[in-house]
């Protein structure tokens, strides 16, 4: 799966979770950029992304990823 495809599918998950069709995530997006992205919504986002890509983040990854770009790195490393 190309990086673009991952971003495209990821973007849909973000839009569903935050119920906001205007969201466009990029490499640098962080929780500061999306108003409803607080720690409680974060868990739902992680679960939804795991389901979308059929993979699991481990605790270390969830606690250290800095932005959506790093999240995509992990997804690609996991699903090849």
């Amino acid at each position: 799966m190309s990086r673009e495809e991952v971003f495209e599918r990821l973007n849909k998950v973000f839009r569903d979770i935050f119920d906001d069709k205007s969201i466009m995530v990029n490499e640098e997006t962080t929780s500061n950029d999306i108003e409803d992205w607080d720690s409680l919504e974060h868990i739902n986002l992680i679960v939804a992304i795991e389901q979308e890509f059929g993979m699991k983040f481990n605790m270390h990854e969830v606690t250290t990823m800095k932005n959506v770009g790093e999240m995509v790195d992990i997804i690609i490393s996991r699903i090849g």
Partner: protein
Amino acid sequence: MKELEYPFDVSYLISNKKKIKKELLAKPGLLPKNIAILGGSTTSEIKNMLEIFLLNHGIKPTFYESEYNKFYEDAVFGNEELDNFNPDIIYIHTTNRNIMEYPTMYNDENVINEKLNSEYEKFRIIWDKLFSKFNSTIIQNNFEYPYYRLLGNKDASDIHGKINFITRLNQKFYEYASSTKNFFINDINYVSSCYGLDKWANQFYWHMYKYAMDVQAIPYLAFNIANIIKSIYGKNKKAFVLDLDNTLWGGIVGDDGIENLALGPEVPSGQVYTEFQNYLKEHKSLGIILNVNSKNEHENAIAGLNHPAGTLKPDDFIIIKANWNPKNLNIKDIAEELNLGADSFVFVDDNPAERQICRDYIDGLSTPEIDVPENYIRIIDHNGYFEVTNFSNEDMKKNELYKDNAKRSQMMATFENYNDYLLSLKMKAEISTFKSIYLERISQLSNKSNQFNLTTKRYSLADIEAVDKDDNYIKLYGKLEDIFGDNGVITVVIGNIKNNDELHIDLWIMSCRVLKRNMEFAMLDALVKKAKERNIKTIYGYYYPTLKNKMVKDFYDLQGFEEISCDEDGNKTYKLDISNGYTNKNNVIEVEK
């Protein structure tokens, strides 16, 4: 909404809950309720999921959520926000993470018993404190099993084991539940077993977010809580409508012949249908009505139901529709004949196309997505359609009551004059102020009655108990029996005394089982008598239209009241002056003094 019935797609719900919520909020006639969640771990997503499942049952929740792990403090020491919130339901979400002191191997039996007692007492104090402060219903989690066993298998049988300790603690919870009204156990021990304990106890979510369970299991938990709540508010299903071929037996009776049906102990495919028939039949003891809706010649359907290996016989059903009409029309007919809303039916049919048509045409009908026969029971059962909360003796007799009604209809056909028919029933009524043994039934009736209901005001058991104690209310129930049987408590009137000589009727309901029997006249006679004893001069009645109560739109006119106002929504106010005398209206029912 089909997406919110079991088995549901968890990832769809997690991703789309906001959209689903918006859609459900747009429905008319939602019942508002205040729900306090007192948590011993993170509860945010539990609240979100509970909200959509409740909306799907027509209940619109407003939530209070305790601060993280402040369930004990909120309950015992109080909290202004919670006090002002005035909850209808208090849900206590605690898990084995909230057990403070487990036994250790160094403890002797006395110490372990003390630990057990102190864990239990902590909760008992919470419940008693909440009951003393609020007029609400408490829903309390029991404890799920721990995810590791220090003693291995012995953890279950040895008093030092955590599993043994949890089992004993749960047992104490159940004893409290069985002796306390308005208190219900949310059985997370069972729900976590069904989900799979190892998955349920995924520790990632605890260490990351202090969720005491897998976040993906939350829809199952919330669904289970919502089932208890909808049952409390009378939103359980009331009847099965069952297909026959490949639903109650394997094969098609009209084509294959009765001797070739798969039913009975000889072959696996027959056993599975026998077990399903047994499962359905068990529901009769809960007062669930069984009906048939099948595309078949009537005589073939009856022959199939008389199959020697079948446990369901024609006599077990109230209405059997075996014909070639569209099934959605049959369902509407059944609803009309039983005087029930079609939204209180569970329609079981192996054919997905039939399910879809009926679902499309009948709003609120439940049509479980049964797939293969060996899964029928699990899928129907896990939907919790008939969740038992307040079970009354009336429920157990329900099937007989409907059978009696069928006999009355036959007899009515033999009379030309309706009054003669009523007299021939030799009706006897008991009309009296509330008695404690009937409070449960009265609350149930107030939540179930939709058609003969002037104000559609709902009363939980706690609400009814409050009315019962309050001297400013005149509160009457009515029981009715006749030559065919006892209908039990079937009508309730609650009037509020204001300004010394006014009685305002907050609630007037009657079960549709006893329509057109003049019971409403007998009730008014009794109400006026009571009102006079309290020096009431004027009785005020109210009619608030809903989608379901058109039947009583002229009720007060027929009772001799005078309409005094009507707003643009059709809400009407009536009055009846009783200061200049009143003539009794009932002359067909003998009322016991």
